[in-house]
């Protein structure tokens, strides 16, 4: 768990971060979102002390981060930045081995870990381990950047616009990868973006910042349904709110007893997928199937409409 208590950071006369407090539950993804210059990166970089707070306290698992040296702290926290920041003169394997090497792991353990991580990110070790970053595609570089951050098995991963430099298709894939890896490893993630869509898609909780202040800190559904007056409202109005709300919940959440004609929908699909299918097949209801293919009920247009309208 990460706790920020009345944290501020001043650069000269400017308050880049102004009295920000929030806490992040272990094993969740928190997304900090806001416009350029709102203090997102500064907030993130204070967590691993790349920037020292001017005031306030930051605790990780109850321990004040100021009580250890910055370098020791950072070796225990994964860090991913936009444009990946891979070391261009090192192979993929050596890049991934950066922190384990600093921590003095023996070479067989490092080699094993590198293979493990490349495999986790669906990159064949024998094909990629000895390549240099400039021989990789943007998407591959990005994955190596995340693999490097996870190498020493940190419990916390900080990401500053990690997908900012990727094209939309690779970006969507990278987001899915992150969600999968986060769930599988159970790590805590704090991610910075200026893209509200990305925040809603990835975050268990979203922290909206503007002018150095934290305006609202809530789960995505709440941000969409009850945005704080002013800036957050404006930010949220920019995205298709009903569709966003639908994409946050699985079909299983509104499945009703009964049957319907047509191709079945997976219970794990999102409500947004269900709406799309209903519209496409021009039906008022479709059957819902569980993972093993047995029909468990139906999903109806009326139920979807009721769910999407909750915000209004």
């Amino acid at each position: 768990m990460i706790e920020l208590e009345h944290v501020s950071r001043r650069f000269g006369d400017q308050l880049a971060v102004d009295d920000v407090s929030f806490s992040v539950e272990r094993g969740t993804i928190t997304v900090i979102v806001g416009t350029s210059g709102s203090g997102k990166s500064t907030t993130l970089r204070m967590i691993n002390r790349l920037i020292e707070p001017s005031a306030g306290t930051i605790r990780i698992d109850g321990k004040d981060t100021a009580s250890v040296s910055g370098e020791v702290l950072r070796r225990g926290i994964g860090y991913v930045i936009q444009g990946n920041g891979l070391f261009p003169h090192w192979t993929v394997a050596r890049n991934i081995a950066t922190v384990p090497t600093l921590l003095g792991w023996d070479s067989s353990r490092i080699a094993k870990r590198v293979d493990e991580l490349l495999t986790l990110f669906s990159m064949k070790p024998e094909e990629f381990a000895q390549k240099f970053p400039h021989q990789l595609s943007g998407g591959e570089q990005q994955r190596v950047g995340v693999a490097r951050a996870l190498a020493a098995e940190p419990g916390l991963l900080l990401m500053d616009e990690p997908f900012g430099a990727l094209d939309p298709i690779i970006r969507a894939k990278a987001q899915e990868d992150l969600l999968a890896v986060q769930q599988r490893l159970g790590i805590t993630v704090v991610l910075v973006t200026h893209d509200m869509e990305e925040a809603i898609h990835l975050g268990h909780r979203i922290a909206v910042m503007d002018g150095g202040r934290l305006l609202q800190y809530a789960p995505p559904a709440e941000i969409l349904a009850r945005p704080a007056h002013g800036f957050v409202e404006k930010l949220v109005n920019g995205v298709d709110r009903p569709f966003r709300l639908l994409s946050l919940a699985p079909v299983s959440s509104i499945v009703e007893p009964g049957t319907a004609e047509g191709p079945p929908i997976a219970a794990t699909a999102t409500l947004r997928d269900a709406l799309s299918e209903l519209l496409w097949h021009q039906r008022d209801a479709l059957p819902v199937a569980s993972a093993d293919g047995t029909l468990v009920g139906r999903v109806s247009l009326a139920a979807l409409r009721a769910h999407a309208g909750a915000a209004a």
Partner: protein
Amino acid sequence: MSRIIGPLARLATLALLLALILKPDWFVPVLKPFTENGAPVIYNQGSLLSLTLYHLGLVAIASLIGTALALVMGVFVTRKVGAEFLPLSRSLVNIGQTFPPVAVLALAVPVVGFGLKPTLIALVLYGLLPIFENTITGLKEVPANVVEAARGMGLNPTQQLFRVELPLALPVILAGIRLSVVINMGTATIGSTVAAKGLGEVIIAGLLTSNTSFILQGGIIVALLAVLIYDALSILERRVARRTGRLAEVAG
């Protein structure tokens, strides 16, 4: 970064150089027209080979000292603590370059005596600038997000410098060293005026006896040495650049 001479021309240059040093008599027919009154055509006051080796040794020592000094200064002024010394260091290094090496010799001899020492001082001062400036440029050109990543992974400042910044700046620093070495090759000839052994002796002997053949011999050997060393260091530089992925980026 285009190669200045191809492999064949490189071999030919090397052959010519070796012939000039080891078998100077072969060149009597060519050099004969440059002598008058039956003066000796080929330098006869010492072994050309040993003078060449002395010359190379002198340049090597001066370049090593100069590189060490310029590197330390360049690294220092690009750190936070040393940033305020940048203008001062830059002025000093520039004076070293603009102050004529001959004048440095004249000033140094009364203090340190004749021979190797005043020559080394003159060469070191004269060769600092390109290495110093290239060290600064090379370090400043290291991509900001790479340094940020290094810091973010928990590398301490020393580890950042030696594992990330210097290796990435190396091709640019090497270019500075190459320039400095080539400048020193030529400048080292003046050492002979203060009795430092080197190829300058051949040229000065030619000047004293109005023997153009000697001057040509000394001058051509120095020039060929400079060309070959420039070429060799260029190849080294390309190797290093390719390894750091820089060249591939440029070539696309």
